[in-house]
C-alpha cells in the first residue's frame, strides 16, 4: 500500500454533538477510495479534514507521512484538490473560473484542462452561469485539476446530476485515475455508484469507521 492519508484517533465535535468519534483509517495514495455510509455519518467532515478546511479536535492526520499541521495549508490544498457536492461557479466566464485556480495559466493550458474533463475548448468564453449542471461540475473539476493536484477529494459530486451526466462524470474521473497521476477519495451514499468507481471502501456509520477493505468484501459483510 502506498503512502496517503493516515488518521489516528480523529474526533470532531460541533457544539455538543460528536461528528467523528476516534476515527482510525488509512487512505492509500493510489486508486479510488470511497467513503460510504448514510447521510450525517461524518463523511463530508472526514473529507474536509483531509485538506484542512476543517481540523480535528483530537487525533492526528498525516499525508505521505507528514502531519497536516506541519504542511502549508495553501500548498496542501493545491496538492489535495476538492470538488464539492454542489457546483460552485465563480462570476464570469469559464476562463475566468480557471484563472482563479491558476492565474498564470495561458489559453492552451486552459484548453488542455477542459479536454481532460471532456469539455470543448469553445466553452472557455462562455459565461459559467449558462452551463448545464453536468457541464458546471466538469468545469469545477477542470478548475481543480488545473492546480495540478496529486489527490482529488470528491464530495458527492454527482448527487445533483441526472443519471447520464453523472455517469459521464464518473467516467471522466476514472479515466484520470487510469492515467495514473491521480488518487481519488470519493464520498458516495449510493452503493451502485460505489461498485462502479471504488477500488476500496471506508464505511462510516454513526461517526465511526465500521469497515475498511475492498468493495466486494465490505459489501458482502454489510448487505
Amino acid at each position: 500500500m502506498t503512502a496517503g492519508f493516515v488518521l489516528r484517533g480523529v474526533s470532531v465535535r460541533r457544539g455538543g454533538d460528536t461528528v467523528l468519534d476516534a476515527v482510525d483509517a488509512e487512505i492509500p495514495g493510489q486508486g479510488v477510495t470511497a467513503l460510504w455510509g448514510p447521510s450525517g455519518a461524518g463523511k463530508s467532515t472526514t473529507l474536509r479534514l483531509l485538506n484542512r478546511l476543517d481540523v480535528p479536535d483530537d487525533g492526528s492526520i498525516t499525508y505521505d507521512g507528514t502531519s497536516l499541521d506541519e504542511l502549508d495549508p495553501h500548498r496542501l490544498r493545491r496538492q489535495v484538490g476538492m470538488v464539492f457536492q454542489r457546483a460552485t461557479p465563480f462570476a464570469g466566464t469559464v476562463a475566468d473560473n480557471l484563472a482563479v485556480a491558476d492565474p498564470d495559466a495561458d489559453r492552451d493550458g486552459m484548453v488542455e484542462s477542459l479536454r481532460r474533463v471532456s469539455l470543448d475548448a469553445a466553452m472557455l468564453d462562455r459565461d459559467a452561469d449558462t452551463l448545464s449542471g453536468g457541464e458546471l461540475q466538469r468545469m469545477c473539476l477542470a478548475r481543480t485539476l488545473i492546480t495540478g493536484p496529486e489527490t482529488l477529494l470528491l464530495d458527492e459530486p454527482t448527487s445533483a446530476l441526472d443519471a447520464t451526466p453523472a455517469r459521464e462524470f464518473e467516467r471522466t474521473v476514472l479515466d484520470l485515475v487510469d492515467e495514473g497521476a491521480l488518487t481519488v477519495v470519493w464520498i458516495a451514499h449510493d452503493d451502485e455508484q460505489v461498485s462502479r468507481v471504488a477500488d476500496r471502501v471506508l464505511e462510516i456509520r454513526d461517526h465511526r469507521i465500521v469497515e475498511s477493505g475492498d468493495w466486494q468484501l465490505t459489501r458482502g459483510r454489510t448487505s
Partner: protein
Amino acid sequence: MTISWTGLAVSLVLVVVAAGISLAWRLGLERSIVWAAARALVQLLIVGGILVLLLMPGVSLWWSWLWVAAMLAYAAWTARQRAPSIPGLLPVAGAAFLAAGTVCLVVLFGLGVFPLTSRTLVPMAGLIVGNAMTSTVLAGRRLQEEFADKRAEIEARLALGQSGRDAARPYLRGVLRSALSPQIETTKATGLVFLPGAMTGLILAGVPPLQAVLVQAVVMFLVLAAAATTTSVVALGLVRRLFTPDDRLLALSREKV
C-alpha cells in the same frame, strides 16, 4: 428664533400622536415610543448643558477633545451592542471611528473649512461618529450575511489554495458597495426629496438660507467621507477575523438586519 419650554412641552403632543397610532393599530410600540422620546430629550438636554459649559469663555479646547474621545468609545460599544453576533466588532469599530474622525477632522480643520473651536469640533465629531456608527453596523451585518450566503464559493476558493484575503476579496466589493449605497442615495436626494437636518436647524435658527446650504453641503460631504472610510476599515478589519490563521472560514450565523 427661539423655542420656549412651553413650546417644547406642546411639541410632545406629536409623541402622543405617534403613541396613539401604535395603540390604535395594537403595535405594542407605545411604551418604546414614549421611552425613546423621553430618553432623547434627556440626552439632548444633558448634551446641551455640557455644550454650554464647553462654550464658556476661557474653557480649554482639550475638554472638547476629551468629549470626542468619549463619544468614540461609547459609539464603538454601542455598535458592538447592536450587532453582538459579529466577531471582534468592538476594536474594529473603534479603529474605524478613529480613521473616519482623523480623515474628516483633518480636512475640516486642517484645511480651514471651519475654525477649530469647541463650537465646531464637538458637533462635527458627533456627526462623524454618529454616521460612522450606522455605517459600521450596516457594513458588519452585510459582511456577515454575504459570507454566510457565499460560504460555498469562498470555501471553493480556499480549496483551490487561495489565502483567506484573496478568497474574500470579490465578496468584499459587494459588501462595500451595498453598505455605501444608502448614503450615496441619500446624498443624491438631498434638497430634492428632503431638507436635511443641519440646514433645517440653521434656517429655523435664523441663519441666512445660502449660509445654511453651504454648511449643509460640507456636512453631507463629511458624512459621505465618514461612511466610506468607516465601511472600508470595518470590512477589512472584520474579514481578518472571519478566517483562522490557517485560512479556514469560521462558522457564521446570519443576523437579521
